[in-house]
């Protein structure tokens, strides 16, 4: 047996750029044709888009009305409330970063970078606003440090988030009779603020309703089950626009004479009912994934029906559907644009209003709507990235 001592088995060397090109772009003759066509296509598209964005487009409406896009017609002297809410969120993100880590860290860092960029933008800006933006990253780090103290418990952080949601609504609407916190009509809420608020209220308020509907649909009681199925299927069977119109035109008829609810609240009711039906189906998916053995085991150790559901099944089922709920939040965030059709001044409708506010801007549709599209894209892409990370972190896909 002659062993050749010079023979060394090496792992295959990583392909060089030329081999990579040959393998991925020019492997066959039609591959080459495709590549060339794609390059020509890309050249014309990029050239057209870049020259339009940099030279032809007139970005005046976008640059001149940042406040409108951000908060609509919210009274300027009350804007500190929006600032406070942002501070709250920044602090909570810092806290959650320390306590939960993982995906939250990515988000907290993204928030820090975003606010730092806002604070350092080289455009004329009120100094107070600039300092306000700068305070946000600092608050995130304070929150991160605060995570070491006794409040850095998962339970407290979750309660903090819930509390911040209630505080946000209270702060924005104000309370009648309090001098330093006068009531702000919901008609003045607008822009990105209203877009976020509609989606958040929709998802938060639809959650308990969705859980009840899902449990009702799983129930053995035919009457209860029937009603739940009826509600879910009707809502899922019609477009959101019809539900929003129902909420804005017909809901007032359903209520007794004396009760009036304003336009924004009506849209929120519509969004919530719509989201609840989809939420119910998502949660049902989670419930069905829990094996029957879990309930049987719970009963065997002496828990009753409610305890088995509340302590054993629901916690596991809800954990499974967290990524789906994030996905639903993204969908709802996009669906808030439909509120523009029933006359709410959310981001898209603000774009419309900005275009009409100045005769010279009347024809700048592309600039304004593209700007809105980019805003939506950035938020949605970030959120779907987070949702994918979350899925990995929770190990949902592995079971």
């Amino acid at each position, binding site marked *: 047996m002659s062993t050749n001592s010079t023979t060394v088995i090496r792992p295959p060397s990583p392909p060089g750029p030329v081999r990579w090109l040959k393998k991925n772009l020019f492997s066959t003759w039609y591959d080459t044709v*495709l590549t060339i066509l794609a390059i020509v296509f890309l050249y014309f598209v990029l050239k057209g888009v870049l020259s339009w964005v940099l030279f032809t487009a007139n970005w005046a409406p976008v640059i001149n009305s940042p406040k409108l896009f951000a908060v609509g017609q919210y009274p300027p002297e009350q804007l500190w409330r929006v600032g406070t809410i942002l501070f709250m969120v920044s602090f909570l993100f810092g806290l959650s970063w320390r306590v939960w880590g993982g995906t939250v860290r990515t988000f907290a860092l993204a928030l820090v970078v975003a606010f730092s960029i806002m604070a350092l933008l080289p455009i004329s800006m009120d100094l107070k606003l600039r300092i306000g933006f700068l305070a946000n990253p600092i608050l995130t780090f304070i929150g991160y440090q605060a995570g070491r103290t006794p409040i850095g418990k998962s339970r407290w952080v979750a309660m903090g988030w819930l509390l911040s949601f209630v505080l946000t609504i209270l702060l924005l609407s104000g309370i009648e009779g309090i001098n330093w916190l006068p009531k702000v009509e919901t008609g003045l809420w607008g822009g990105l603020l209203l877009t976020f608020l509609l989606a958040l209220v929709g998802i938060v308020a639809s959650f308990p309703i969705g859980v009840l509907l899902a449990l009702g649909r799983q129930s053995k009681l035919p009457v209860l089950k029937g009603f739940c199925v009826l509600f879910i299927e009707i809502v899922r069977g019609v*477009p959101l626009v019809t539900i929003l119109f129902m909420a804005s035109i017909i809901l007032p*008829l359903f209520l007794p004479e004396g009760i009036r609810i304003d336009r924004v609240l009506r849209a929120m009711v519509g969004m919530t009912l719509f989201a609840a039906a989809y939420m119910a189906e998502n949660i049902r998916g989670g419930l069905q994934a829990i094996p029957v053995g879990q309930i049987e085991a719970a009963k065997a150790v002496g828990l009753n029906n409610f305890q088995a559901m509340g302590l054993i099944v629901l916690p596991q089922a809800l954990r499974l559907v967290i990524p789906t709920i994030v996905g639903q939040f993204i969908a709802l965030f996009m669906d808030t644009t439909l509120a*523009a059709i029933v006359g709410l001044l959310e981001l*898209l409708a603000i774009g419309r209003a900005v275009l009409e506010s100045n005769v010279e801007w009347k024809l700048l549709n592309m600039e304004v*709507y593209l700007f809105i*599209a980019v805003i939506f894209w950035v938020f949605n892409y970030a959120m779907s990235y987070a949702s994918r990370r979350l899925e990995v972190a929770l190990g949902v896909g592995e079971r």
Partner: protein
Amino acid sequence: MKQDSHIQVITRSSIPLWRDERVIQGIAQVISAVLVIGFMIFFVSNVFQAANDRGLSLSYDFVKESAGFPLAESVIPYDESQSFGYAFLIGILNTIKAAVVGILLATALGTVAALARLSSNWLVSKIASVYIEIVRNIPLLVQLFIWYFAVFQNLPIVKESIQWPGHIYLSQRGVYLPAPVPTQTFGGWIAFVVGGIVLSIILRVALGRYQLKTGRATYPVATALAVLLIAPVLGWFLVGASPLAADIPVIGKFNFDGGTRLTIEYAALLAGLVIYTGAFIAEVVRAGIMAVDRGQFEAARAVGLSGMQVLRLIVFPQAMRVIIPPLISQYLNLTKNSSLAIAVGYPDMFFVGRTIINQAGSAVPVFSMVMAVYLSISLTTSVLMNIYNRRIQLVER
């Protein structure tokens, strides 16, 4: 005997009424029914109250009244003197027109994008993923606004129309396309087409039976498809003169002569729906193709099936099982999303419904009609889907 009755007595007395599962369930049902029905009575009585107090009409009599409003486009002839009910029918037809054409185009676009994304060509795959990632993360309504207000409304006037190859003209007046016009020989050609369809069905069934009986390959599907394709082509040449002539649009003084016209509202709605839904369909198709295990392909080759047979008999049926359910739900989404036509002014069912409410003032009846149509579309589809799913479900041990 004695013991038995003794046991029964004990079990009966050991469960008090308020802990008997059946009693609890019965009470829970009654309570929930009373609650829900109570709410409904409360709402409905409020509606009647409001109808009384504010003179709101709840009857469906308005459908026979004259509509008195024009509609920008309709599939079948319509004028203002016709009834509200007829106008609503026009709306339904317009919804179907947008949905059906949208579904066909979106499926084509989605399939191409999915194949491109799976392509081994790096550049092609990246272009497809950029398209999908951009389009899926921007709300449909924003895209519709871009298409309608920023693209189609900014098209040049008729005289300076943009001309695309194939006699397609784009202008503010709409998109003009060549239209096929039947000539004298059209009837003869249709006879060939119908004959081809009948013959191909007969062949498909007969050859299929023969193959089952004898085990000899007779290629029933391929033969039927070939007949289906050859018959119209053969007929085209055999009837003498061409059975169809193209009616090409020509720029006139203020407008086009000839051709068919798509309004910019319809074109914008279609562009928005197709490009948006196409991205979602692409993901559905990609997931379906990737769901078929590579081992399936290899095993099929190992038992001696040819490349085409592997695709037709192994990969395709399995991919379809994964693709069809989410694909149908995308089709339903597109149909429901076509209600956004109201934002660009295309007179679909929802738009017409809104107009009727403005004119006749009967919001509740009109809304019930609109929702009934959407619901019947959705529910019919989901019933059919369930039947289909049960048929193709994997039978497991």
